[in-house]
C-alpha cells in the first residue's frame, strides 16, 4: 500500500486515466451496493468521461460501464496504480 499522500478522491481523476480503488468512505450499504455493481476494493477503474461538477462514466472489469454522481465520486478513494 502506498502512503496516504498518493490517495485521492475519484472525483479528481481526469478522463482517460486508470486508477485503483483503495476504499469507499461511506456506510456499509453504499459499500455493498457499489461492490454489487463491480466497484470492490482493488478494482481497476478507467475514467471514460467526467468533468467538474457532473457525473462520471467509469469502465470497470473490462466491459461494465457505470455512471456515478459527483457526490459519490468524492467518497471513493483511489490511487494511481503505478505508484503502488
Amino acid at each position, binding site marked *: 500500500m502506498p502512503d496516504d499522500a498518493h490517495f485521492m478522491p475519484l472525483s479528481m481523476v481526469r478522463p482517460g486515466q486508470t486508477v485503483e480503488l483503495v476504499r469507499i468512505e*461511506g456506510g456499509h450499504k453504499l459499500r*455493498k*451496493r457499489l461492490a454489487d455493481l463491480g466497484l470492490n*476494493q482493488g478494482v481497476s477503474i478507467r475514467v471514460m468521461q467526467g*468533468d467538474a461538477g457532473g457525473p462520471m462514466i467509469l469502465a470497470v472489469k473490462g466491459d461494465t*460501464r457505470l455512471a456515478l*454522481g459527483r457526490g459519490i465520486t468524492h467518497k471513493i478513494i483511489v490511487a494511481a496504480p503505478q505508484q503502488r
Partner: protein
Amino acid sequence: MVTICLAGNPNAGKSTIFNALTGARQHVGNWPGKTVEKKEGRLWLDGQEIAVVDLPGAYSLSAFSAEETITRDFLLDAQPDAVVAVVDAANLERNLYLVLQLLEMRVPLMIALNMSDVAESRQIHIHRERLAERLGGLPVISMIGSREIGLDALKEAMVQVARRRVKAAPVYADLGPAVESEIAALCSLIEADANLRLYPARWLAIKLLEGEDDLGTRIGPALAAAAAAARDRIAAETGEDADTLIADARYRFLGGIVSYAVTRAAADGLTFSDRIDRVLAHRRWGVLVFLALMWVVFQFTANVSAPLLDWVDGIIAGPVTRWAAALLGVVGLGGSWVESLVVDGIIAGVGGVLVFVPVLFSLYVALAVLEDSGYMARAALVMDRFMQRLGLHGKSFLPMLVGFGCNVPGIYATRTLENPDDRKITAFLTTFMSCGARLPVYVVFGSAFFGAASGGLVFGLYALGVGVAVLTSLLLTRLVFRSKTAAPFVIELPPYRLPNPKTVGLYVWSNTARFIHNAGTVILAASVVIWLLLAIPVGTGQFANVAPGDSLFGATSRVIAPALAPAGFGQWEAASSLMAGFVAKEVVIASMNQVYTGADEADEPEPPSTLGEDLAGIVTGLGEAVVLTGQEIVNIVPRTLNIIPGLNVPEANFLGRADDAGSDSALQSALRAAFTPLAAVAFNVFILLYVPCMATVAAMRQEFGARWMLAQVAYTLVVAWLAAVLVYQGGLLLGLG
C-alpha cells in the same frame, strides 16, 4: 406444475429470453404485496406445461431494492425446479457475481450465456466448457436471445435440470481464513436450528456476515447476536469490514474463472457504445440530444398517429353507430331510451376513447424503443446534474419519463429509488407528467382551436407539467424534506443495441391492451353512469329525454362551475367533464361527447349507406390513413427545421389534399362555440395539473399511505386552479382574450 425462473442482472437480456420462451402466452401482474411487475408465462415442453417466471433484474441477492428482495425471497420460498441465470456474455465478470450467490444458495442452476454475438464482435471469446468446468459442471448455453439462437438447447437443459439429471458439484469462493472460520461457526448454529432447515446454511451465514439486516424475521435474536459478534471479530482481526472482504474474495475468485475461461483481444479499446456516449452522455450535447429526442417523440405521438385516429373515429362515429341504431330498430327499440344508452352513452363514450388507441400506440412504441435501445439510462445520466439542483437525482427522472406514458407505472417505478423520501417526492412529481390519457384532450382542443399549430400547444403543456414539477420539487426539498440527504446516483450504462422487435411489440401490446381493457371496464361503467346522471331529470323533463342542463349531472356541475369562472370556463359543461376526469382522463372526451353533442343528434343527416359501402369505406380509409401516416413521419423533418426562424421548408402532401380544416368533428365545432381560445388553453392547463385519475390516487395510497395521497389530491387541485386562473387572467391582461 414445474416452475422455472429466470434470474439475472438488469440489462442481461432476461426479458428477451423470457419473451422468446413464452411468446404471447404471458401474464403481467404485480408481485403480491409489492408493486414491482411480475411476469409469468407458460411453455409446453417435453409433453408438460411449465410455468416460467421472469424475476426482476438484480445485481445481488441482498435486500437493497424491492427487486432484489423479491428475487431472493422467491428463490428461498417458492423453491423453483430450475433457475436460469441469464448472463451478459460481453460483461461476464460482473454478471457472474450474482451467479456465485445463486451457487451459494444451492438452487438447481443453469447458465444462459446471452448476447454471445456482442461478445464475439468485441473479440471476447468464452470457452463454454471451461466456464462450465469451473462452475461445477452446470449446463452453460450460448445464446443470442434476440434471434432466438440457442433456445432449443436452453429448453433441453431446462428439462434436464428440472428433472435433477444434472449433477453439479458445489462451487464456493474461498473467502479467506478469518471469514471462513466464522462461516463454519455460524453454519453449525444454523444447522442446529430446526426453523432454518430450509435455508442453505452457507449462504445464510455469508448473508449474516455481510450485515444483511432484512433477514430479521427469518432468524432468531440469538443468531443475529452471534452474527454481529462474528462481524466485530473479523473487523478486529483483519482491520477490514466483513462485507468488503467477502466482495473482494468473490471478485478474486471470479477473476480467476474469467482469466481461465475467456480469451480476448487487447481490451481497453473504446467500444461502439463508448463512442456514441461521447455525444449522448456529454454534459451539453447529451442534453441537446435528449431534448431533440423528446421533441421527436411528441411529434410522433401528436401528428403521426393523427391519420389513423381519424380513421378509427370515422368508423365509430359513422358505420358502427349506424349499424347499432339499425340493429336496435330491427328489434323494435329504435328511438327508445335503450337506443339512447347504446348510441349516446356506450358507443359515444367507449368509442370516443378507443379512437385514441393509435396515439397511445405510438407513444408506447417510442418509450419501448428508448428503453430497449439502452438510451433511458443515458437520459437519467444527462438529467442528473439538473435533477441534483432540484434536490433529487438522475434516477428520479426515469419514473417521470415513464409517467409520460402513464402515471401509474411511473409511481410504481419509483421503487427503483433507494431513499424513501426521494420516492415520495418523485411519485408526487410524476403526476404532473402529462400522461397518454391526457393527450387526447389536448389533441381535440388543439386541432379545434389551433389547427396545424396544435403541436405547439401539446409541447407547451408537457413543458408546463415539467415546470410545475420543478417548482414543486424545490418547494418539497426546501420546506418539507429539509433533512433529506441526497441519495447516491449510481446507474449502469448498458451497451446500445438495436431494439428487439419482439420486446417492443410485447411492451406496446401489453400497455395498449391495458388501455383497451380500461375502455371496456372502467370507462364503460363511467360512460353508463354519466349517461344515467344525464338521463335523470331534475325538476322538469322525463327520463332519458331531458336537456343535459336540466339533468342531475348538469345540476351538480352547476354547483361547481362558478368556482371555475375566474379561469374562463365557468360553464357547467366544462365543470362536468372535469368531474368525469377525476375517474380517468380517458373519460373526459367521452363525457364531452355526451354533454356537448349528445343533445343535438339530428344536426347532420347522413345519406343512408349499405353495409357494403360502409365496409369498402373502412378499407379505403385505412389505405389512406397508412399513406398519411408515412407522410406525417416524413414531415417531422420540415416541422423540426421550421422551428428555426426564417426557414420555411414545405411539408410533404402525398394525397394532394388541402388542409382538412373543414373536416372536424361535431365535438370540435361545439367546443369552438363554448370556449374562447384563451379559455381553451386555461382548461387544458387545468386538465394537465389536477388529479390524474382514480388509479394514480389508489397507487399513491398503496405506496405512501392515505395522508400523502390526500396531500397530493389537495395540492394538485389548488395548483391546477391557480395555474388556470393565472393563464386566463394573465392572457386577458395581455389582450389575448
